[in-house]
Every structure is written in C-alpha cells, then in structure tokens.
C-alpha cells in the first residue's frame, strides 16, 4: 500500500498531508464543536425556559452565552467550511491535493489546542470568558476574569489556523487548476471560497491585533481601550467590527457556494447567472469592509456617520438580492426533486432571505436604536447563521457524503431530520423576533414575566432542534458504517463538475494526472 493512507491509525491522522483526510478531520472536529456549542445553547435555553433563576448562576449564564458564540463561530461553522474546502476544492478544479499539504496539517492540528485552551477556562478559578462573544472592552479588559489571557491565546491560535488554511486555498486555486479551467469556469463553491480566503487573510490579523491590544492593556500597562490613559473603549468596537463584519460574510459566502452547487443539481439545470453570482460575491466581500459601524449605531455617532453606514449597509441587499434571484430562477421550470440536500438548500434560500430582511430592518439607524441588543438581533443572526450556514453545511454533507464514502445515506431519516430541524428552528427563533420587538434584551439570565410564554416556546423548539442534530450524527455514522454501497460516479443524476467524474468512493489520490477541461 505504498500509495494509500498509512495503516497505522495515529500516523494516518496525526501526520496526514492528504487533503481528503485533513478535510475529514476538519469536519469531525467541527461537528464535535457544534455539539459542544449546542450543549451550551441547551443550558442557556433551559435556564430561560421560565423566568427566575432555576438551574445555573448568572455568572455561569454569561460564560455560556459567550462560549456558545465563540465555539459556534470559530469552532463549528468556520472549520466545517474549511473541511469542505479541503475535500472538494482539489477535486473540483482537477488538482491532486492542496498546494501546501504540510501547512494544511499544521493549520488543522493547532485548532484542537486552541479550543482546549478556550474550553479549559470553564474549569479554572474565575470561570471562562463572560463578556459576550464580541468581547467589548472594558468588559474584556478591566472587568474580565483572569482567564482572559487564555482566551486571547486561544483566539491567536484560531486566527493563525484560519490564515494558514486560507493561504493554502488561495495558492491551490491560483496555481493548481487543471488545464483549461479558467477562473470563470470554476465551480461557484471554489469562487466563494477563494473570495472568503482573501477576506480571512485581510481580517483575521485585525482580530489578532484587537486581542493583542487587549493583552497589552491587561498585562503591560498600555491604554488602547482605557480612557484613564487617554485611550477609548469605542475604539475597541471599531477595531472589532472592522474584523467582525467581514467575518459574518466569511461564514456565509462558502454557504452561498454550497447552495449554488446543490440547487442546479436537483433542478437539472445549469446555475442561472453564473457570472453575476461571481460578481455579486465579490461585491458583497468588498462592501463588507465599509459597513462595520452599523453594529454600533448606539455608541453616539454623528448623524452623517449613521447615514453613511445605514445606506452602505442597505446597498449590500443589492448583490444579495441578485444571488437569491439567481437561485430561484435556477429552480424555475427545472425538473425538481427534493432529496435531503435540496430540501436544506431550499430552506436555506427561504430562511436566509427572511434573515436578510430583518437585517434590512436593523440597518435603519433610527429603528436600530429600538432593536439594538434585543432578542430581535439574536433572532436575525440565527436566521442567517443557523438557517444560513448550518443548513447549507448539513446540505453539503448529505450532498457529498455518498461521494466521500461510497455509501448512500438513509433518505427517509435525512428527510425526517430536515423537517424536524426546519420546524424546530422556526419554533426556536421566530418567537425571538417578538420578544425583541417587545423589548427583551439579549444576554440576560432572567427576564420579566411578560416574556415568559414566548421564551418557553423558544426553549421547546431549541430542544427539538438539538435532537435533530443527534439524528444527523446517527445518520452519518450509520451511512459510513452500514450504508448501502453505491458506485455510480455521478451519485446524483443531475450533478455536473469534475468531482463527479471521479470514481465513487473517491480514491485516496485523485487527479494525479490533471484532467483537460474543455
């Protein structure tokens, strides 16, 4: 087996430089983090089931909301899409592997250490980070628990991992496309990822800068964010959101790419408006750099600033609208079938658009004063993060899993999971719009009696949604272990692209000789 994977379990997974093995590692790691972050969410929803304090202390509640956000964003969603990129990009562009395979190994294997450091703080004296996932100064500097330094180092390592992963993707796509695979022939998943990779290289260092300034303020007596020494806490918010807004597109752009692969397959039509999709993605990426202060309308900006950030934010609806239009038009008059990946993708289009509309409401500076830091915001970003990124990630796994392992998942169980997830998601987050508009603030462990009913509904939905994820885990393990073997290279009759020309299951090494793309 000179050309296969190492037969020793440890040397195969620890020292792997194979893009498929590393992709698998990323996907399993992200699913483990998804369950961990989900467990934190279950604790939050259990505490909020009824008004008053029942299960946990407010201090621990704060740690749960913070860790839920950090683990989901940096541990679950981002590594999941890096895992998909590792698996699929070389197969989609006809490359034998990623450009920098040993760096690929490094960028994965530092991640478990980053999260071990972060999660370990929960067991330390003073507890874990409790200042919200946005870690605003001075909550995260002057008033932070001592474990904040572990949090800072954890974020540094995650950032290094993301930057290395992104450089690898950029190098792969720029240098290793098969002959004839021009940029405008690349599948949209590759396009969205290469744009995401550029965003990551540009803004992860800004996040590293923000936490480095925190580190210096806390330990070395500087005053970047401390007014006593001439600094300004509002500066922290500017630096954070200069990273943070591109970050939300880093999360959603690969999801756009996934959906743009799946919808044409099950509509049996090519993607409508391919080039407009590429330009729309690039426009969204550009706009993401110039709208950051719409997260901070209430800090006291001059009217001119509020107006600028309001209009610039609204502008993002234009390229996003182009994308939604193209997805819908791809389905129009298509020969549609509704396998599990397609169901998740259609739900993505509907619910993401819904989340986009609440985003438009939030972009109105005058109205945002009312919505700011309420459950309306929580509902908004869960519609785009969960129904957006997580639904499309689930769709991607169902779509490509047969290709990866050569076995078919259980379609009935997949559809059951979809319907539970879809209904439970809406039961969880739809009422949070009402709670937010009625004035319930986010990040509190308790609430007034008038919010009791909808919170109970939301908690019930959350437990159902959590259950659907266990079904997902079971279905994936069942498929890998006992699924019905298939050997059709295309898997899906409507699928197009280089990855579907490879045998099923995909061999350990693929495209050692590059294919010719006409």
């Amino acid at each position, binding site marked *: 087996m000179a050309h296969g994977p190492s037969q020793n379990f440890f040397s195969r997974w620890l020292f792997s430089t194979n893009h498929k093995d590393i992709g698998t590692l990323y996907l399993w790691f992200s699913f483990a983090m998804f369950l961990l972050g989900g467990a934190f969410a279950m604790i939050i929803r259990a505490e909020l089931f009824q008004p008053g304090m029942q299960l946990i202390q407010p201090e621990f509640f704060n740690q749960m909301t913070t860790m839920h956000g950090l683990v989901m964003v940096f541990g679950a969603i981002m590594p999941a899409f890096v895992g998909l990129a590792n698996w699929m990009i070389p197969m989609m562009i006809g490359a034998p592997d990623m450009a920098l395979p040993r760096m690929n190994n490094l960028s994965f294997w530092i991640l478990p250490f980053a999260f071990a450091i972060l999660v370990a703080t929960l067991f330390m004296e003073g507890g874990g980070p409790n200042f919200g996932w946005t870690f605003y100064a001075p909550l995260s500097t002057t008033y932070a628990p001592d474990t904040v330094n572990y949090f800072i180092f954890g974020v540094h390592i995650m950032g290094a991992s993301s930057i290395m992963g992104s450089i690898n993707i950029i190098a792969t796509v720029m240098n290793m496309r098969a002959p004839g695979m021009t940029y405008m022939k690349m599948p949209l998943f590759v396009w969205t990822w290469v744009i995401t990779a550029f965003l990551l290289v540009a803004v992860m260092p800004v996040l590293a800068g923000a936490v480095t300034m925190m580190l210096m303020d806390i330990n070395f007596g500087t005053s970047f964010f401390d007014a*006593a020494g001439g600094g300004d806490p509002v500066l922290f918010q500017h630096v954070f959101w*200069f990273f943070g807004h591109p970050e939300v597109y880093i999360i959603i752009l690969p999801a756009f790419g996934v959906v743009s692969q799946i919808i044409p397959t099950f509509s049996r039509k090519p993607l409508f408006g391919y080039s407009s999709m590429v330009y729309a993605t690039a426009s969204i990426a550009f706009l993401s750099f110039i709208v950051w202060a719409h997260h901070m309308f209430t800090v006291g900006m001059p009217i001119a600033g509020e107006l600028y950030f309001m209009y610039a934010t609204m502008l993002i609806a234009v390229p996003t609208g182009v994308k939604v239009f193209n997805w819908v038009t791809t389905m129009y008059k298509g020969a549609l079938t509704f396998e599990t990946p397609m169901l998740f993708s259609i739900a993505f289009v509907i619910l993401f658009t819904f989340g986009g509309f609440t985003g438009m409401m939030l972009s109105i500076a005058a109205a945002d004063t009312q919505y700011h830091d309420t459950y309306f915001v929580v509902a908004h970003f869960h519609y785009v993060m969960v129904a957006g990124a997580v639904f499309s990630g689930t769709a991607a796994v169902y779509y490509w899993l047969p290709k990866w392992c050569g076995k078919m998942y259980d379609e009935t169980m997949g559809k059951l999971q979809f319907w539970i997830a879809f209904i439970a998601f809406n039961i969880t987050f739809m009422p949070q719009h009402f709670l937010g508009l009625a004035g319930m603030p986010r990040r509190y462990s308790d609430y007034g009696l008038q919010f009791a009913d909808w919170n109970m509904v939301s908690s019930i939905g959350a437990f159902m949604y959590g259950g659907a994820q266990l079904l997902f885990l079971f279905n994936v393990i069942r498929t890998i272990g006992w699924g019905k073997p298939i050997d059709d290279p295309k898997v899906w009759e409507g699928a197009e692209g280089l990855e579907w020309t490879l045998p099923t299951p995909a061999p350990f090494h693929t495209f050692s000789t590059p294919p010719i793309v006409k």
Partner: protein
Amino acid sequence: MANYSSHRGVLIRSIIGAIAMFMFAIFVLPPLYDLFCEITGIGGKTGGAYTATEITVDTSRQVEVQFVATNNATMPWDFYPVEHKVLVHPGESKEIVFFAKNLTGKDMVGQAIPNVLPNNAADYFLKTECFCFNNQPLAAGEDAELAVVFIIDPDLPASVNTVTLSYTIFDITDRVPVQVSQLQ
C-alpha cells in the same frame, strides 16, 4: 502542474499581507481613530493647553457652562465641582475649581479625563490651565482644590448656548508607582 516556487510566491505575499493587516490594526487604526475624532470633534475630546492671546470679549452673548464630575467605577475619591455652573461671555477667561479628597488610607494617584458636550463645542472650549494636564497624587486623607482656567472661543457656533464640561477621574496608582513613592 504548478511548481513549488509559485506556491511560495503566494505564500510569501499572503503572509506579508497578513502581517501588514496586523500592523495596521495595532499601529494605524488607533492613531487614525484619534485623528478622525480630533478633526471632526466627535469624541468630545478637548485640546491641550491653550496659550492665551488677545481675544475680544463678546459681551453681547452669554454661554452657560455646566460642570460634571464622575468617578470611574473603582475610584473611591470624593470628587465634585465647587460651582456646578457659571455664565461666561465668549472670550472671557474664567477660573473654576473642582474639589478632590482621597478618602482611603493609602496614597493614590488620580487622572481626570475631560469631555465636552455638545460635540461641536469641543473645539471652542479652550483651557489655559487644567489639573487634567497632569495626574493628581493625593496622600491618604489629603484633599485638594483643582483649578481649571478656560476661555470660550467667540467663534462658538451660535446654536450652542450651553456647554457641559465633564471630568471622569480614574485611579492610576498602579501605573505611576514613582510618584506615590515621592509623596512619602
């Protein structure tokens, strides 16, 4: 098939880009932010010491100047303005006094940070002397009267009739151990 040197080119350019963005975040964004606030005056930050020049006093106009004192969360001193408001003519030099007392049993150093509202008045609030230009060491139980001498620039926009000068006092004892030892 691409060779390794073209990968290295991408790698080096990306790493340089990433390091440049890191440097940008730490060394460019904070000064840029301060500069932006200074130009637009939106931070409410006042300028440094102003050297008095001949200004004609505009007796046709009166501006009410209010004084606010705030203790930062961990600061245990007594700190308040002796007068809460004064009426001044633009161009007139006026001295007012804040009172500070260290109520604790240990020597401390405080630092007051000024802020002016409304934002468009910050550039017209000129301080010729201010205790905020230096930090304030007070021994245990000691008190002090802290003076501010200010002039309202006659160019103050006509829409502004009331200006609020606010000081927040911070405990910076840990940062200036030298001065505490000089007190003893």
